[in-house]
């Protein structure tokens, strides 16, 4: 009964309000509405990203919400990790300060929409570079900072030696990843059945596997190794030898802003080139006076890379001094100096049998 009365009262109130509005406030409301409509039509949505970053004095960077070694806030709340350091490098290049980054943690499912809509300036996620993402999502990948492949993790107790023994398994995956699609391809082409248990959030996926909801955890091997950190019984599981896909992970930017794409691309390449040339965080200042023309061009002592990119003369020095070269960033976060202890593998320099290769800076 009370509910009914309330509704009646509300109706009365609305009526009274309606009458009042008709009298005086109508004009104000109308003005506001017309203004909003016109404003929407006139305003131009896309300004150059670099101008926005400079105006705000901070780079907004979309990263993984919590992947050990790649992107994780430390116990003081400071973001650390491999992709985090890439963001810091871009901030150092554009703003001269690697600390001027605002990190927006994103699930794989939401990451491209966040970039499309302009919520973030750059996406530094463990996102795989694929043709369809480059062509149909309104985004462009700026390079590859980590060459990866999809693998499987199973409990040792299952006595599984190969991915071909996974018929009938239930598999935990993260939604909105290439993992989901590769799985379907792999099991179909090997005439095996499987059932997926998918979550939007990487943490939920690892938790589900750890608690035994699935037989198998499938993801990029980097993620598999990183997720061991979060498992209660990490030692009970092994990663199977097969890699079922190519997963080049890289940063992405919005289409239609070539200048920003170049900044994103060359920040990464400069870090690779610095490793090739032996320029490190420690020796970068001495290296400025090196005789090697390649080093001199890299560090802005010769040539006009900084000016052509619309960045300061010292941008590459800022990147290397504040963040480090590619090898340093790798070792510190995921490589031999980190708890994850990943091998360089495909991510070694081309000169050392890997795939990391920077085009000439000239």
């Amino acid at each position, binding site marked *: *009964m009370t*509910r009914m009365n309330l509704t009646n009262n509300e109706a009365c109130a609305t009526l009274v309000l309606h009458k009042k509005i*008709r009298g005086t406030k*109508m004009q104000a*409301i*109308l003005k506001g*509405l*017309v203004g*909003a*409509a*016109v404003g*929407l*039509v006139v*305003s131009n*949505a*896309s300004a150059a990203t670099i101008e926005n970053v400079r105006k705000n004095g901070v780079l907004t960077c979309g990263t993984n919400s919590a992947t050990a070694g790649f992107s994780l806030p430390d116990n003081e709340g400071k973001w650390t990790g491999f992709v985090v350091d890439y963001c810091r490098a871009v901030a150092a290049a554009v703003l001269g300060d690697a600390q001027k980054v605002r990190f927006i943690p994103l699930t*794989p*499912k*939401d990451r*491209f*929409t966040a970039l*499309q*809509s302009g919520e973030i300036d750059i996406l530094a996620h463990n996102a795989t570079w694929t043709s369809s*993402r480059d062509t*149909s*999502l*309104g985004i462009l990948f700026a390079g590859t900072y980590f060459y990866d492949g999809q693998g499987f993790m199973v409990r040792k107790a*299952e006595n599984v030696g190969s991915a071909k023994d996974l*018929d*009938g*398994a*239930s598999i935990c995956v993260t*939604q*909105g990843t290439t993992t*989901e*699609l590769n*799985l*379907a*391809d792999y099991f*179909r082409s090997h005439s095996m059945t*499987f*059932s*997926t*248990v*998918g*979550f*939007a959030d990487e943490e*939920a996926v690892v*938790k*589900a596997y750890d*608690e*035994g*909801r699935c*037989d198998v955890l499938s993801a990029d091997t980097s993620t598999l190794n990183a997720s061991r950190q979060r498992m209660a019984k990490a030692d009970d599981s092994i990663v199977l030898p097969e890699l079922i896909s190519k997963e080049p992970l890289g940063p992405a930017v*919005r*289409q*239609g802003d070539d200048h920003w794409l170049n900044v994103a691309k060359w920040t990464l390449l400069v870090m690779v080139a610095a490793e090739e040339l032996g320029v490190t965080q420690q020796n970068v200042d001495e290296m400025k006076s090196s005789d090697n023309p390649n080093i001199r061009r890299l560090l802005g002592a010769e040539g006009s890379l900084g000016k052509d990119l619309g960045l300061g003369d010292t941008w590459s020095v800022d990147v290397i001094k504040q963040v480090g070269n590619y090898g340093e960033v790798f070792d510190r976060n995921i490589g031999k100096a980190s708890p994850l202890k990943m091998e360089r593998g495909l991510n070694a320099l081309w000169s050392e049998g890997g795939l990391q290769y920077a085009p000439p800076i000239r």
Partner: protein
Amino acid sequence: MSDVLLAAPSRRSLSLHDAKVRGIIYQLLLAASLLALAVGIAVQTASNMRARGIPLSFGFWNEAAGFDINQTLIPYDTLSTYGQAFWVGVVNTLYVSLLGIVLATILGFVVGIARLSPNWIVSKVAASYVEIIRNIPLLLQLLFWYNAVLKALPAPRASIELPGGIYLNNRGLIIPEIQLYAGAGTVGLAFLAASIFCVAFWFYARRAQNRTGKQLPGLWVSLAALIGLPLAVFLLVGSPVSFVTPELKGFNYRGGHQLYPEFAALLIGLSVYTASFIAEIVRSGIQAVPKGQTEAAHALGLAPGKTLRLVIVPQALRIIIPPLTSQYLNLTKNSSLAVFIGYPDLVQVFAGTVLNQTGAAVQVMAITLSVYLAISLVMSMAMNAFNQRFAIVER
């Protein structure tokens, strides 16, 4: 024409000082600016999307989806299209919502009536249920059911074996698959015949009661017919049914139907949560029926059970149904929390994976919103029609 002008003084009808004229102009301006706003948003969105190279078409609908969905009520595999994935999501949403509505209604009515019980313990238990459940956020409850209750079940190899070849483990509840042989159709026909008989008997019993005042044992006759006839036919044609018991093979039981924990957690969570609100609605509805009605029924010699069933509940329903409708709508909308526990409902499948794979955020979200709107409107219409049947007929 001139007559009209003469009849109404022209100074009044054409002047901006006339409140009526001003009113109409304001209305027109408001309508025009709302329209302009809508068109403006649409145009701006379209041009922004074009500028950023985001697809604007619905062309993705017929492309192969390429991902797997573990729980489907309609045929779907990894070669199906995004359109089929959409329908899987819609059906899964409807499935869990409708089952949830049924369970929540039953539980809610039981608890609501229990709260009014003269038995102290029963009424306090019901009251605590309501107060605890409706004051804890639904998402937390879903995570509780999923993580704390269902995932705590043993692994497949240590499954809890229930009688009848049913297994319970952390992959779900696995029940034997029913296989039908020739003759099974006859049993179905027998059941149909029994149902028709029940309806006919119900009409007959009512008539008989109107005529003689005597009540026939309708419930027992119906039960006997519904169970007895199909059972007799079943035995006669030689038990044309066999059960395929699930067998542990490889990672999990093969054969048999599987009820997934994600589905179970969502269904339990939604039902239990919504039932606490329904219980309150039922309690207040019953209490709103004047006490004089109960006393009058008792004075006529009706037993307490019959008083409730024939006098109180029909009157209480008039008060209960409108707020009940909004609880049903809430339950349906809340089913989108499935995302957090991995049940493939519309939001998880379509506004999740499909949106991400295709990048068609605006289209996908528009479709998803429309589906929820459509489900809610249809449900409201049905409940309003139901309400009209129960509303007081003014004589």
